[in-house]
């Protein structure tokens, strides 16, 4: 069967590489889109250099929450690292200012919803990032302070050291927020992340087309392959291996192009970026196999469905604007938790924004589970040897 495996592998390569539409969608389209992003967003970014963000803080946290207050003080200190311009007021006044768009957000520690924003823009996004960082730091510091030894050392006996820690965290927070508006870490990186996600998932097209030639209910070529003495398992496995290899070649080209031509910086965790991409490609392949095996429709219909599902997934994960990602995260978080495009995008995002890899691996695990689910379901359909009708 080894011979048959390599025979089918060789011809699957040939068939895919000679298919203009497949090559366009999986190789050329992501590169074209990447180029368009580069032209479109580099200009926008220049216009959207970081500005100091006006916010209102209600119920002055100085009285109740020293940690938050310290943070806010540091972030609003008038120097080159200043991020926030804070005005302390009551909720009514703050709401009025927000309505008049005099401020970008309201910080209210008495409310469950600590941050209130009116719209979704770059300032609001930065505010959200900043608040998330503060919350994390608050939890960290609370833990330190609750420990008697740390309390003794860091807070009561060595207050300066505590401030050193705060300063360090502040620096990190400030840097990561400031980075949002630099070329090193721009919010348009999300666009590139979704582009990679899209390319990974478009790889499903390769798997889908390759699989169609092996299944009797998918057309005359599939019928001819099915009556041959080569086992279905061998055919499908070799077709999928060929598709996956081509998918990896395609995504490598995209990386090469974005890194060396468009000068995109994917950060310091490049091996994890590669790991996530490899898994993402596998998820894309699994999606293609699932659609090919589960749906009884024409090749064009299935291709359309795969493209639509992928594009919609990318849209929800921020391809056409980062705002959408946060809207979905906030209102329908489950949707993004099962959206492979978002899991890939969010994985990259987590690598960039967080020092820990917890969120990254959470996305990786979710992707693996979705892949297993798709392949498992596909196997049920693919195990069919005979059909009710053809």
């Amino acid at each position, binding site marked *: 069967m080894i011979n048959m495996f390599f*025979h089918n592998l060789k*011809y699957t390569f040939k*068939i895919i590489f000679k298919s203009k539409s497949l090559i366009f969608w999986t190789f050329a389209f992501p590169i074209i889109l990447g180029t368009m992003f580069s032209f479109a967003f580099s200009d926008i970014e220049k216009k959207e250099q970081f500005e100091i963000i006006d916010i209102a803080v209600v119920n002055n946290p100085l009285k109740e929450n020293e940690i938050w207050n310290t943070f806010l003080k540091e972030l609003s200190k008038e120097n080159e690292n200043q991020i926030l311009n804070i005005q302390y007021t009551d909720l009514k006044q703050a709401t009025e200012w927000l309505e008049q768009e005099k401020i970008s957000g309201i910080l209210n520690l008495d409310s469950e919803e600590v941050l209130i924003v009116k719209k979704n823009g770059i300032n609001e996004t930065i505010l959200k990032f900043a608040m998330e960082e503060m919350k994390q730091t608050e939890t960290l510091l609370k833990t330190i302070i609750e420990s008697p030894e740390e309390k003794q050392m860091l807070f009561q006996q060595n207050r300066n050291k505590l401030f050193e820690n705060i300063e360090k965290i502040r620096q990190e927070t400030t840097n990561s927020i400031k980075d949002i508006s630099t070329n090193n870490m721009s919010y348009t990186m999300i666009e590139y992340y979704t582009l990679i996600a899209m390319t990974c998932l478009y790889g499903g097209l390769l798997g889908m087309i390759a699989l169609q030639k092996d299944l009797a209910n998918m057309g005359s*070529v599939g*019928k001819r392959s099915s009556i*041959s*003495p*080569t086992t279905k398992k061998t055919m499908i496995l070799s077709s999928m291996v060929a598709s996956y290899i081509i998918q990896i070649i395609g995504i490598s080209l995209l990386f090469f192009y974005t890194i060396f031509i468009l000068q995109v910086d994917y950060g310091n965790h490049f091996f994890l970026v590669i790991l996530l991409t490899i898994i993402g490609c596998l998820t894309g392949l699994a999606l293609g196999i699932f659609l090919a095996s589960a749906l009884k429709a024409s090749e064009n219909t299935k291709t359309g469905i795969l493209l639509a599902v992928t594009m919609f997934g990318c849209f929800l994960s921020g391809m056409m604007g980062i705002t959408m990602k946060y809207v979905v995260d906030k209102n329908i978080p489950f949707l993004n938790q099962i959206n492979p495009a978002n899991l890939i995008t969010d994985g990259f995002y987590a690598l960039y924004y967080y020092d820990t890899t917890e969120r990254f691996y959470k996305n990786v695990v979710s992707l693996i589970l979705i892949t297993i689910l798709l392949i498992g379901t596909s196997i049920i359909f693919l195990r069919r040897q*005979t059909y009710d009708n053809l």
Partner: protein
Amino acid sequence: MKKIIEIEHLTKEYKEKKAIDDLSFNVYEGEILGLLGPNGSGKSTTINCILSLLNFQKGSIQIFGQEMTPSSYEIKKEIGVVFQEVAVFEELTVYENIDYFCGLYIKNKEQRKQLIEDAIQLVGLEQYKKFYPKQLSGGLLRRLNIACGIAHKPKLIFFDEPTVAVDPQSRNNILSGIETLRKNGATIIYTTHYMEEVEIICDRVMILDHGKIIASGTISELKKLTQIEEKVTVEILGLLEKEINKMKELQNVIDVNYQNGLLIITYKKGENNLPKLMEYFKKNKINYQKIYSERPTLNDVFLELTGKELRD
């Protein structure tokens, strides 16, 4: 004679409709069996069931003396199929297409190379090896379709309407190729809409309608099933109703049909009908242009048995 295929009580139902209704027949070694039937009569369904592509509710199928199942890979090695639809890859050349499908049966590259050359020669595609399917005419594409199905030199070959929409040259090429395959020892099941093809190449014919065999036998055996022994066709203008009715009373006449200047008279006995008819025309001063006599064809048998034309 050795049985290559044995089918007993094969029944295939789609919801409440029986596509194949208790079908039993054998196919013998070295014969070409013609499967005839109008659209929806169950020909392709029968072939797909034999090939284990379709499941069925009742019955058994044996090929080469063994039960045929989807995992009967040893049996599959000896089977070739030429489907009604052209089943080739647009992205591969003529040679590559044949190599791909042949390679699913034959591991050895050298052996395969020879087999591909033989197949290309058989269907007359020597000049088109490097052509892509898009560059081929309909007839040449059909020939490629055949080459892909038979390159591995199978012992049992299914041809499902291989000559649909092909030019006469390709049709002759295909039919002579099938004859060659039989001479080389293959057993063939051939379905078609074209009666003349069946009459040329088939040893035995089975007529299917509504999933049932309504007649089976050699061509001469089938022709005996019809009452008609002779059919006389006359090109004649302005024939009157009373003249047509008078002709119906002539000796041995079964039926008289007159449409668009063409008079067709069918006789139950086939001796001296033509001279007698010419004499009748002369006597009654009826002028005609052309007149000719034919023996009944399979089409007449088919029409009489099923009540419809084969191409309906």
